[in-house]
């Protein structure tokens, strides 16, 4: 996916004044929050399960290589070909090689965020093959030629009018704005592709070391189609997605759908192990898994390792007041919201996404809802520390922090400075006590007045009173 995270600030400016986006985010953005809160009432020991889920994920990460080797062995024993991709580009290369070797012309694809990292669709199209997104949201975006703006609701930024327009234009059908009818239209458009495709690509929510299986968690049924009907199935997923056992999967599944869409369970949980057997009447003849590193291993052993617990539910972005106001595209890469503010700089380089770790008030709403207890504010702070230490932040910012630090550590100087500032700003505030503009603080005063100090500092008044 084209990276624009380095221009986060200008992305934000555009998104804040995009009337359609703003309206759509206000209308639809809160629904996941309400649904999650409602469904969590079913779970009387939510905290116990979160703790257990975090421990499962930490246990895997601590011995990730052993788990990957075990997974590979068992997947191979069931006839799955396991590929390893060091970089995003390798993902595209491996996939195209598999496709070319089998004369593939048409590919149907269910949701895979990892494939967004590598821009797989463009690479496949450039290799003269047709690739069709089949998740309804992803399909809409493929028609619109846009990237997803949310990891589980990719087209959350679009309204029905926009979808109607796209369908009518691309399907050459009468424009209709009835949502069930639009869903039916997509089903009818996509069904022939499922039947005729030579290859199906899916993501993988989890890899099970115990059985060598890949698990996908879906609602629409397209995930089942692409893993059942075409003669080749390729699952693409990150190396961190292993779970030890089926029991661990059961624990995590009590949290994933609830945290994501507010469902107790998704319509489909499909566990796929190897190609079809000799007597099977359906299922793919070939089963492939591409295990993707692409920056993940770099986080191991660092404070940021905890970000690899992530099970991609999207609750952090749903609950993030920054995300709610700017939408996912502003973040400029595959993963928006708080988890994106941690993963994007980690995967694409801090200097390419310098503002993302700053794009949070550290309000903590994300951490409270994270099913695997990723301390997202703390991790954003870690990245801020790295930015500071590597002198990536603007000179003026580093300078002012330096001055402030020295003063704050010298109380007499600090008191004197505060006294002068309080007086000066008080005078500038006039009768109403409001500053409409302050040099260097236009970031504040562009949209808000700055209430002026009342004139004397507390310590000044306190000293006077004591004497």
């Amino acid at each position, binding site marked *: 996916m084209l990276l624009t995270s380095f221009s986060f600030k200008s992305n934000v400016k555009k998104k804040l004044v995009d009337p359609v986006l703003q309206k759509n985010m206000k209308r639809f953005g809160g629904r996941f929050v309400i649904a999650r809160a409602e469904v969590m009432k079913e779970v009387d020991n939510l905290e116990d399960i979160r703790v257990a889920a975090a421990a499962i994920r930490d246990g895997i990460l601590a011995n990730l290589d052993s788990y990957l080797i075990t997974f590979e062995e068992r997947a191979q024993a069931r006839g799955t070909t396991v590929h390893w991709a060091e970089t995003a580009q390798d993902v595209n290369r491996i996939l195209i090689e598999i496709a070319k070797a089998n004369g593939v012309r048409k590919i149907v694809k269910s949701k895979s965020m990892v494939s967004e990292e590598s821009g797989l669709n463009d690479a496949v199209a450039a290799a003269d093959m047709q690739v069709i997104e089949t998740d309804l949201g992803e399909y809409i975006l493929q028609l619109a030629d846009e990237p997803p703006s949310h990891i589980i609701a990719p087209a959350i930024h679009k309204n029905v009018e926009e979808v109607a327009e796209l369908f009518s234009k691309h399907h050459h059908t009468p424009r209709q704005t009835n949502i069930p009818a639009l869903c039916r239209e997509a089903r009818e458009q996509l069904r022939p592709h499922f039947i005729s495709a030579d290859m199906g690509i899916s993501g993988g929510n989890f890899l099970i070391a115990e059985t060598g299986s890949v698990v996908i968690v879906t609602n629409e049924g397209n995930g089942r189609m692409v893993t059942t009907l075409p003669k080749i199935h390729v699952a693409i997923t990150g190396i961190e997605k292993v779970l030890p056992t089926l029991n661990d999967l059961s624990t995590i599944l009590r949290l994933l759908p609830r945290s994501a869409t507010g469902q107790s369970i998704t319509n489909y949980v499909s566990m796929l192990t190897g190609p079809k057997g000799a007597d099977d009447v359906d299922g793919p003849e070939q089963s492939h898994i591409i295990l993707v590193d692409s920056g993940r291993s770099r986080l191991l052993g660092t404070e940021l390792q905890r970000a690899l617990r992530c099970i991609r539910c999207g609750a952090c972005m749903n609950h993030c007041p920054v995300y709610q*106001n700017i939408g996912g595209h502003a973040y400029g890469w595959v993963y928006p919201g708080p988890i994106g503010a941690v993963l994007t700089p980690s995967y694409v380089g801090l200097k390419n996404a310098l503002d993302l770790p700053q794009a949070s008030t550290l309000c903590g709403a994300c951490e409270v809802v994270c099913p695997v207890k990723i301390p997202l504010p703390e991790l954003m702070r870690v990245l801020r520390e790295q930015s500071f230490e590597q002198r990536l932040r603007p000179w003026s910012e580093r300078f002012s922090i330096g001055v402030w630090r020295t003063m704050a550590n010298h109380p007499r100087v600090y008191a004197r400075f505060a006294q002068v500032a309080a007086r000066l700003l008080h005078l500038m505030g006039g009768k109403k006590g409001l500053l409409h503009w302050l040099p260097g603080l*236009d970031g504040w005063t562009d*949209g808000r007045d700055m*209430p002026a100090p009342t004139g004397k500092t507390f310590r000044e008044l306190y000293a006077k009173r004591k004497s």
Partner: protein
Amino acid sequence: MRVGLFVTCLVDLMRPRIGFATLKLLQNSGCEVVVPEGQTCCGQPGFNSGDRESGRLLAQRFLKDFESFDYVVIPSGSCTGMIRHHYAQLFPADPALQKRINALSARTYELTQFLHTVLHIQNLHSSFKGNITYHDSCSGLRELGIKLQPRQLIGQVAGAQLREMEKPETCCGFGGAFSIKLGDIASRMADNKCQDVQASGADAIVGGDLGCLLNIEGRLRRMGDESTQVLHVAEVLVGPEALADLGED
């Protein structure tokens, strides 16, 4: 009981009367209150900007200034959260220092926490005329679990009616330096908050953190709302007579 009052840098500079209100509330409850002179700031601005060193310097300063007290009270959830949850982390290689910090952190309270949970205040002898809506500041709410305490205390203020806004727990967009670095988003978040405040029909928006209050007040006034009062919870709890008596000048 000897209580050290940490005034906070924002109260010192911007709204000393919040400091005096806090002082008075504590004294009214029979505390012996001391305001150590060496205090400046808890270190959060630097810490959240990625400068750990400033966090460490100011954590040590805080320890030196406040270690001798039975309790430390702070009219801010955000500074209290910094001390309680982040100070010890700043010294991973110094367990002895961590131990001292943890011992002090455990005696460090946000104002409404202290009045409610430690002093068990039942009757404030204060009054307020009008409807109040309470904004739950993020650190207080999520790091310290402050939710019922201020509401219970406001409930003791004669004449004060609590009218909850729609999303009292949603961040107002302050976030320290965030409010300047990413001012566009901060202003939008403040705007959302102000709309919720206005829709609640409250005469005053009250909160426990001056940073949030300045952000909300700044947006309200820019929107042209000059009537909605913006008050720190200490000002409401101490009451109008005491406030008048604090005499900033």
